[in-house]
Protein backbone atom coordinates (compact mmCIF):
# COMPACT_ATOMS: atom_id res chain seq x y z
CA UNK A 1 0.00 0.00 0.00
CA UNK A 2 2.72 2.47 1.02
CA UNK A 3 4.61 2.19 -2.24
CA UNK A 4 1.55 2.68 -4.40
CA UNK A 5 1.42 6.34 -3.44
CA UNK A 6 3.57 8.50 -5.70
CA UNK A 7 5.61 11.16 -3.92
CA UNK A 8 7.56 14.16 -5.05
CA UNK A 9 9.47 16.25 -2.54
CA UNK A 10 11.50 19.33 -3.38
CA UNK A 11 13.35 21.63 -0.98
CA UNK A 12 14.61 24.55 -3.00
CA UNK A 13 15.91 28.09 -2.84
CA UNK A 14 14.22 28.84 -6.20
CA UNK A 15 10.80 30.50 -6.42
CA UNK A 16 7.91 28.02 -6.51
CA UNK A 17 6.32 28.08 -9.96
CA UNK A 18 2.77 27.09 -9.15
CA UNK A 19 1.39 27.40 -12.68
CA UNK A 20 4.01 25.02 -14.09
CA UNK A 21 3.50 22.62 -11.23
CA UNK A 22 -0.26 22.57 -11.83
CA UNK A 23 0.28 22.15 -15.57
CA UNK A 24 2.52 19.14 -14.85
CA UNK A 25 -0.11 17.30 -12.83
CA UNK A 26 -0.57 13.60 -13.53
CA UNK A 27 -3.64 11.73 -12.46
CA UNK A 28 -5.21 8.44 -13.39
CA UNK A 29 -8.81 8.12 -14.62
CA UNK A 30 -9.97 6.87 -11.23
CA UNK A 31 -9.05 10.15 -9.51
CA UNK A 32 -11.66 12.85 -8.96
CA UNK A 33 -10.23 15.29 -6.43
CA UNK A 34 -7.13 17.45 -6.21
CA UNK A 35 -6.44 19.71 -3.24
CA UNK A 36 -3.70 22.34 -3.35
CA UNK A 37 -2.34 24.41 -0.53
CA UNK A 38 -0.11 27.42 -1.05
CA UNK A 39 1.43 28.95 2.05
CA UNK A 40 2.39 32.56 1.46
CA UNK A 41 4.70 34.81 3.51
CA UNK A 42 2.56 37.45 5.22
CA UNK A 43 3.65 41.09 5.50
CA UNK A 44 3.44 41.16 9.28
CA UNK A 45 4.69 38.92 12.06
CA UNK A 46 2.58 39.71 15.08
CA UNK A 47 2.29 43.49 14.87
CA UNK A 48 5.61 44.10 13.11
CA UNK A 49 5.95 44.70 9.36
CA UNK A 50 8.49 42.41 7.77
CA UNK A 51 10.18 42.18 4.36
CA UNK A 52 10.29 38.41 4.24
CA UNK A 53 11.37 35.25 5.99
CA UNK A 54 14.61 33.31 5.84
CA UNK A 55 14.01 29.56 5.99
CA UNK A 56 16.72 27.24 7.29
CA UNK A 57 16.47 23.45 7.14
CA UNK A 58 18.30 20.42 8.48
CA UNK A 59 17.79 19.15 4.95
CA UNK A 60 18.58 15.43 5.26
CA UNK A 61 16.39 15.08 8.34
CA UNK A 62 13.64 17.21 6.76
CA UNK A 63 13.51 14.86 3.76
CA UNK A 64 13.45 11.82 6.03
CA UNK A 65 10.67 13.26 8.20
CA UNK A 66 8.62 14.24 5.14
CA UNK A 67 8.97 10.68 3.86
CA UNK A 68 7.83 9.22 7.20
CA UNK A 69 4.78 11.49 6.98
CA UNK A 70 4.10 10.40 3.41
CA UNK A 71 4.24 6.78 4.61
CA UNK A 72 1.69 7.52 7.30
CA UNK A 73 -0.62 9.17 4.80
CA UNK A 74 -0.26 6.29 2.33
CA UNK A 75 -1.28 3.87 5.08
CA UNK A 76 -4.21 5.94 6.22
CA UNK A 77 -5.86 7.33 3.08
CA UNK A 78 -6.22 6.07 -0.51
CA UNK A 79 -4.18 8.92 -1.95
CA UNK A 80 -2.72 8.44 -5.45
CA UNK A 81 0.01 11.06 -5.22
CA UNK A 82 1.49 13.84 -3.13
CA UNK A 83 3.77 16.57 -4.39
CA UNK A 84 5.32 18.99 -1.93
CA UNK A 85 7.70 21.89 -2.48
CA UNK A 86 9.18 23.85 0.41
CA UNK A 87 11.22 26.91 -0.24
CA UNK A 88 14.43 27.54 1.71
CA UNK A 89 16.57 30.64 2.06
CA UNK A 90 15.14 34.11 1.60
CA UNK A 91 11.44 34.36 0.69
CA UNK A 92 9.85 37.78 0.25
CA UNK A 93 6.43 38.82 1.50
CA UNK A 94 3.67 37.60 -0.86
CA UNK A 95 5.81 34.75 -2.21
CA UNK A 96 4.94 31.10 -1.68
CA UNK A 97 7.01 29.20 0.89
CA UNK A 98 5.06 25.90 0.81
CA UNK A 99 3.13 24.25 -2.00
CA UNK A 100 1.27 20.97 -1.60
CA UNK A 101 -0.78 18.87 -4.02
CA UNK A 102 -2.80 15.84 -2.96
CA UNK A 103 -4.59 13.69 -5.58
CA UNK A 104 -7.28 11.23 -4.52
CA UNK A 105 -10.47 9.67 -5.80
CA UNK A 106 -12.71 11.72 -3.54
CA UNK A 107 -12.48 15.11 -1.90
CA UNK A 108 -12.90 13.86 1.67
CA UNK A 109 -9.61 11.99 1.66
CA UNK A 110 -7.81 14.68 -0.37
CA UNK A 111 -8.78 17.38 2.15
CA UNK A 112 -8.07 15.17 5.18
CA UNK A 113 -4.65 14.05 3.93
CA UNK A 114 -3.53 17.54 2.91
CA UNK A 115 -4.52 19.06 6.25
CA UNK A 116 -2.84 16.23 8.18
CA UNK A 117 0.32 16.66 6.13
CA UNK A 118 0.55 20.38 6.82
CA UNK A 119 -0.38 20.13 10.51
CA UNK A 120 2.18 17.39 11.14
CA UNK A 121 5.02 18.87 9.10
CA UNK A 122 4.73 22.00 11.23
CA UNK A 123 5.41 19.84 14.30
CA UNK A 124 8.07 17.49 12.97
CA UNK A 125 9.97 18.65 9.92
CA UNK A 126 13.15 20.50 10.92
CA UNK A 127 12.72 23.81 9.12
CA UNK A 128 12.93 27.13 10.94
CA UNK A 129 12.19 30.68 10.02
CA UNK A 130 13.76 33.99 10.81
CA UNK A 131 11.82 37.13 9.93
CA UNK A 132 13.62 40.18 8.56
Amino acid sequence: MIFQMKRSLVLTTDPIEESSLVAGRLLSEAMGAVVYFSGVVRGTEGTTSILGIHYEAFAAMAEHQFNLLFDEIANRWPVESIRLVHRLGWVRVNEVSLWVEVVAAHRGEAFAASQYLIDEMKKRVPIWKQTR
Partner: protein
Amino acid sequence: MTISVHFYSYFKDLTGCTETHLEVAEVCTIAQLLEVAFLRFPNLRAMQNSTLIAVGLDYQPKSYLLKKDDQVSLFPPVQGG
Protein backbone atom coordinates in the same frame (compact mmCIF):
# COMPACT_ATOMS: atom_id res chain seq x y z
CA MET B 1 33.44 8.44 24.11
CA THR B 2 33.14 11.55 21.97
CA ILE B 3 29.72 12.55 20.61
CA SER B 4 29.31 15.14 17.88
CA VAL B 5 26.46 17.55 18.45
CA HIS B 6 24.93 19.84 15.78
CA PHE B 7 22.90 22.96 16.48
CA TYR B 8 20.24 24.53 14.26
CA SER B 9 18.27 27.78 14.13
CA TYR B 10 18.87 30.13 17.07
CA PHE B 11 20.61 27.37 19.01
CA LYS B 12 23.60 28.32 16.82
CA ASP B 13 23.43 31.83 18.26
CA LEU B 14 22.98 30.56 21.82
CA THR B 15 26.04 28.34 21.54
CA GLY B 16 28.08 30.38 19.06
CA CYS B 17 28.71 27.30 16.91
CA THR B 18 27.06 24.91 14.47
CA GLU B 19 28.75 21.79 15.72
CA THR B 20 30.72 20.68 18.76
CA HIS B 21 32.20 17.50 20.24
CA LEU B 22 31.37 16.50 23.78
CA GLU B 23 33.19 13.92 25.87
CA VAL B 24 30.78 11.63 27.75
CA ALA B 25 30.88 8.31 29.62
CA GLU B 26 30.76 5.08 27.60
CA VAL B 27 27.23 4.45 28.92
CA CYS B 28 25.41 7.70 28.46
CA THR B 29 21.82 8.76 27.80
CA ILE B 30 20.80 11.88 25.94
CA ALA B 31 19.72 13.34 29.29
CA GLN B 32 23.28 12.94 30.52
CA LEU B 33 24.70 14.36 27.28
CA LEU B 34 22.48 17.42 27.74
CA GLU B 35 23.93 18.03 31.21
CA VAL B 36 27.42 18.04 29.69
CA ALA B 37 26.19 20.39 26.96
CA PHE B 38 24.63 22.79 29.49
CA LEU B 39 27.98 23.08 31.30
CA ARG B 40 29.70 24.05 28.07
CA PHE B 41 26.81 26.22 26.76
CA PRO B 42 24.89 27.62 29.75
CA ASN B 43 22.45 29.53 27.47
CA LEU B 44 21.01 26.21 26.31
CA ARG B 45 19.75 25.25 29.76
CA ALA B 46 16.85 27.72 29.71
CA MET B 47 15.63 26.10 26.46
CA GLN B 48 15.68 22.55 27.74
CA ASN B 49 11.91 22.06 27.92
CA SER B 50 11.43 23.08 24.29
CA THR B 51 14.58 21.47 22.89
CA LEU B 52 14.04 18.87 20.17
CA ILE B 53 16.60 16.07 19.96
CA ALA B 54 17.50 13.94 16.97
CA VAL B 55 20.03 11.17 16.56
CA GLY B 56 20.87 10.88 12.91
CA LEU B 57 17.61 11.74 11.12
CA ASP B 58 15.15 10.54 13.79
CA TYR B 59 13.78 12.14 16.91
CA GLN B 60 14.79 10.40 20.13
CA PRO B 61 13.69 10.75 23.77
CA LYS B 62 16.03 11.83 26.55
CA SER B 63 16.23 8.21 27.71
CA TYR B 64 17.95 7.15 24.45
CA LEU B 65 21.25 5.38 25.11
CA LEU B 66 23.98 6.89 22.94
CA LYS B 67 26.14 4.72 20.71
CA LYS B 68 29.59 5.40 19.32
CA ASP B 69 29.39 7.58 16.16
CA ASP B 70 25.88 8.82 16.93
CA GLN B 71 25.32 12.26 15.45
CA VAL B 72 23.13 14.26 17.80
CA SER B 73 21.23 17.37 16.74
CA LEU B 74 19.67 19.89 19.11
CA PHE B 75 17.24 22.53 17.93
CA PRO B 76 14.23 24.62 18.95
CA PRO B 77 10.62 23.88 17.88
CA VAL B 78 10.29 23.65 14.10
CA GLN B 79 8.42 26.32 12.11
CA GLY B 80 8.15 25.17 8.52
CA GLY B 81 5.37 26.09 6.13
